[in-house]
């Protein structure tokens, strides 16, 4: 029982003390949970619909085959082989490339800051869903109780609840405002929940992942059944999937497909390397990579069906109410009997009236109601979850139940992604041994969560949402692509393709085939380089601006386009460059250290030589 067997053939350093997954399922679920996140629900459906519907699947699948799966396999294999977090892996590959690991660590830290802030917003909405009627369904009354608050009437009840009652947003990024206590409290709760799950590393996340990874699929299925039975769902789905091949001529579509598959799989942030490092050495990482990547893409498709059936219902609902408003105007103006015009004969009545009483009809300023216009009003990101979807839920029978289910799904989806982010931070810290051995793991994870919580409390200011968009656009995107490129080049060219393939053969039992070698050596690096240059070109061309929510704006509720002030632009540039700066910094430090060591060893040699003669 306690007598140890012979040493491991390829010999690893801390193999006996390293934590392990309880079983393969935990590992697969953790990777799936990390990959499947909020982006699958609110980014992919929007991209799919706006970039030509069914046709978007073509660039998406090409990107998956030539960029997503090869990179994913590479990360899992290198983590499993070297059995360390991102910092350890890169210092092992080459001491000059240690900066890549540190950059990945910084990136995971920055991402977890704003990602958990979004989760705290989801938590806030979840807590507010336990009431009938839902609080975002009605406007508050104004002072003399004869009407509603102007800001709410000018926009909509859901926008008012999001921008005023939740964020209490200022009109300009320069005005930071004060910390919103309810958001701070929700942020503390969400960091406490993250700490509870990450407290003992993969020991605790391995137990939590069974719920957080599987529960969203259950609720998505419930929503699918409900969504498909709602009126208007069919229109939503045809709108989503109707292919428009012409859009494929726009290079932006290909860029978006490539970046989407990239961010969707959560590559290059160090989380997958950390997860794979806890695997037993002999594990078929090739099969894992393909399965997990396919599960991620299938989940995106599944979620987009759910989202668009609900959006179709919302559009049909809005269209019906638009018609009803026009019918009421006509009935009141011409004193027709109540309910004499129905939605079906509205068009006929309108043409008749237009012909006979053109002036009176023109004076009414009727809205033009087209179902297509309402379908076009889809959104992505927080706009989809907190404005569009919440409004759709308002009109579903049993609204609080659906709201609770929706927000707890979003929360568990985001939580499982947070596990990956946190492991990307904690595993390198534990591996490199910066903390003394006697410090318990619970204290380290607690310290990390506390530092992250205090740093992310700046997002609870009134201008927090503007800052979050900055982090989302500038901190993560460019750096991830850069690190992925360095990952491929570092593993294949610095570590060595042959050495890597031999390692994989030892781990999985057979050499990687032509597809893997070709994509790793040529296709993926070229693709990443193209995406990097294209992305940089796009970023340079777009003016750095944001949309501010300003009730005083003339075209309110449209966001006012304002450009970032100088100091904010400096912060944006800093955020894009800071993680990447680790690479040259560490390389230079290593080079200087080596030179000094070489000089010292040369001095010692000359000393020894001189000792043979007289003096030293």
């Amino acid at each position: 029982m306690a007598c140890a067997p012979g040493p491991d053939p390829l010999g690893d350093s801390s193999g006996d003390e390293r934590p392990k997954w309880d079983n393969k399922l935990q590992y697969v679920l953790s990777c799936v949970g990390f990959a499947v996140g909020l982006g699958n629900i609110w980014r992919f459906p929007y991209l799919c619909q706006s970039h030509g519907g069914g046709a978007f699947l073509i660039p998406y699948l090409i990107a998956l085959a030539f960029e997503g799966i090869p990179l994913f396999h590479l990360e899992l294999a290198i983590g499993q082989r070297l059995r360390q977090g991102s910092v350890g892996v890169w210092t092992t590959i080459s001491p000059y490339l240690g900066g890549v690991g540190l950059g990945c660590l910084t990136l995971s830290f920055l991402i977890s800051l704003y990602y958990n802030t979004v989760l705290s917003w989801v938590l806030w909405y979840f807590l507010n869903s336990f009431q009938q009627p839902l609080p975002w369904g009605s406007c508050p009354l104004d002072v003399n109780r004869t009407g509603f608050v102007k800001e709410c009437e000018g926009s909509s009840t859901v926008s008012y609840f999001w921008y005023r009652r939740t964020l209490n947003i200022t009109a300009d990024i320069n005005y930071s405002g004060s910390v919103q206590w309810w958001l701070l409290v929700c942020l503390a709760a969400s960091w406490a929940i993250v700490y509870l799950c990450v407290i003992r590393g993969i020991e605790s996340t391995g137990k939590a992942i069974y719920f957080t990874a599987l529960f969203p699929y259950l609720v998505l299925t419930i929503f699918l059944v409900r969504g498909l039975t709602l009126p208007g769902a069919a229109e939503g789905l045809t709108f989503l999937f109707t292919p428009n091949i012409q859009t494929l001529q726009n290079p932006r579509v290909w860029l978006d497909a490539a970046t989407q598959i990239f961010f969707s799989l959560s590559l290059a942030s160090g989380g997958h390397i950390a997860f794979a490092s806890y695997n037993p050495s002999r594990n078929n990482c090739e099969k894992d990579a393909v399965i997990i990547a396919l599960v991620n893409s299938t989940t995106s498709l599944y979620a987009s069906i759910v989202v668009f059936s609900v959006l179709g219902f919302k559009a049909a609902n809005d269209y019906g109410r638009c018609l009803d408003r026009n019918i009421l105007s006509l009935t009141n103006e011409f004193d027709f009997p109540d309910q004499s015009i129905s939605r079906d004969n509205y068009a006929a009545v309108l043409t008749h009236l237009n012909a006979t009483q053109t002036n009176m009809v023109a004076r009414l300023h009727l809205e033009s109601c087209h179902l297509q216009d309402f379908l076009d009003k889809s959104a992505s990101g927080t706009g989809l979850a907190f404005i569009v979807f919440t409004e759709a839920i308002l009109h579903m029978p049993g609204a609080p139940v659906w709201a609770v289910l929706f927000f707890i799904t979003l929360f568990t989806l985001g939580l499982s992604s947070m596990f990956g982010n946190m492991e990307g931070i904690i595993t390198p810290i534990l591996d490199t041994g910066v903390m003394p051995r006697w410090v318990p793991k619970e204290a380290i994870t607690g310290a990390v969560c506390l530092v992250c919580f205090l740093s992310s409390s700046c997002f609870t200011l009134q201008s927090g949402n503007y800052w979050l968009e900055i982090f989302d656009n500038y901190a993560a995107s460019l750096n991830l692509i850069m690190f992925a490129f360095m990952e491929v080049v570092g593993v294949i060219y610095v570590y060595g393709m042959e050495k890597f393939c031999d390692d994989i053969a030892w781990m999985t039992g057979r050499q990687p085939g032509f597809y893997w070698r070709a994509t790793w050596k040529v296709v993926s690096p070229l693709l990443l380089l193209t995406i990097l240059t294209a992305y940089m070109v796009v970023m340079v061309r777009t003016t750095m601006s944001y949309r501010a929510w300003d009730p005083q704006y003339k075209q309110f509720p449209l966001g006012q386009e304002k450009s970032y002030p100088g100091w904010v632009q400096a912060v944006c540039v800093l955020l894009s460059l800071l993680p990447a700066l680790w690479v040259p910094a560490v390389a230079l430090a290593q080079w200087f250290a080596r030179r000094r060591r070489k000089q010292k060893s040369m001095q010692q040699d000359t000393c020894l030589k001189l000792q043979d003669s007289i003096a030293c």
Partner: protein
Amino acid sequence: MLWLLFFLVTAIHAELCQPDAKNAFKVRLSIKTALGDKAYVWDANEEYLFKAMIAFSMRKVPNRGTTDISHVLVCNVTQRVSFWFVVTDPSKNHTLPADEIQLAVRMNRNRINNAFSLNDQTLEFLKIPSTLAPPTDPSVPIWIIIFGVIFCIVIVAITLLVLSGIWQRRRKNKGPSEVDDVEDKCENTITIENGISSDSMDMKGWHINDTFMTEDERLTPL
């Protein structure tokens, strides 16, 4: 002569009650929207009830003389159903000021609505805004209650995990002395080439349980 007087009176009435006349109010009813199948038809009797309710509201205003049904004039009834009305003074020459009528209607809006089984949206007095019902706010917002429950559970769970971690580590620290003994014995078993029985007899001297314990475990049904 009588006919002339009659025409005069109706003419004056017609002047007093006109669309957009001074102190006149438009009323709009949406009976079918409110009641669906149970909708009643708007006829002269319903009109009479309306006049009665307005007269009743005017009477409830303090320091106003008694208003009679005949002082309330209704005109321009359409199919919608909508009409205009004015309230005249006892002399039937002038109409009462709009402010007083507005005050009266607002004070008794609920009674008027109930008389017709309608609500503020289906019985509209244009130009008389209705007081909206305030939202029912519980003293403690619901979200705080649920937040408190969840947060307490999370804090308790974290405390339990941290405490169990400390306890486990304390047990492990006490444990190494026993582990060392077993390791020594293992080295003995590797180096000694005798059969297992002599080693187990050795171990029996120190640890009464080891081999016996394992046999017992194999035999106990579970």
